[in-house]
């Protein structure tokens, strides 16, 4: 690759303008990136309280969770209030509630597992719910 001195001079200037142009373009990219990011960035110290709560998490410990065992399934109940009420219920009622609302089983499925008629399950389920309501005395976690 033999270039004449004037050609070399051309390459020198081409390189110079190449570097300057790429730096200028990259500067524009960086500034644009910063501007785009600024739309979403919020200073932690300036965040509204409501939004900070969204970022907060509470640690969960196995000891905080109340475990129930029903028909060979293990069910975790997080709410203490609910767990207390559930433990006061008769075993039969509790089992049906756990199967229906914690394991998301339909009445038909529960009937099969417990070997009773579907209508029995339905009756006991609504009955158990009523009992649970009276045990909890209308209290909810929100009011606690």
């Amino acid at each position: 690759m033999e270039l004449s001195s004037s050609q070399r001079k051309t390459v020198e200037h081409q390189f110079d303008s190449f570097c300057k142009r790429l730096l200028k373009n990259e500067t524009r990219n960086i500034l644009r990136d910063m501007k785009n990011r600024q739309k979403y960035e919020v200073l932690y110290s300036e965040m509204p309280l409501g939004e900070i709560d969204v970022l907060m998490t509470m640690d969960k410990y196995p000891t905080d969770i109340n475990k129930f065992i029903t028909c060979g399934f293990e069910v975790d109940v997080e709410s203490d209030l609910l767990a207390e009420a559930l433990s006061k219920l008769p075993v039969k009622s509790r089992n049906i509630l756990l199967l229906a609302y914690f394991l998301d089983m339909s009445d038909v499925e529960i009937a099969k597992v417990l070997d009773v008629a579907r209508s029995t399950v339905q009756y006991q389920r609504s009955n158990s719910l009523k009992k649970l309501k009276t045990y909890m005395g209308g209290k909810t976690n929100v009011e606690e």
Partner: protein
Amino acid sequence: MSKNDEVLSFPVIVAAVNGNVDAINAVLKRYEGYIAQLSTRKLYDEDGNSYIVVDEDMRRRLETKLITKILKFKVA
């Protein structure tokens, strides 16, 4: 500054394009001032005072870009 205004010599350019570390450093040195000028920004503190400073992050980004792009320059 007058010396720094000259364009880089042909052998240096060829060496830099081929990945020679010393030559690349020479290129960086040559455009150091321009990069600093481009990455100079006006920043404000919490009291609203403005400062004119070189944005280090931006300076590094420009330097990196220059290094990676030098290698792609085609010597005629």
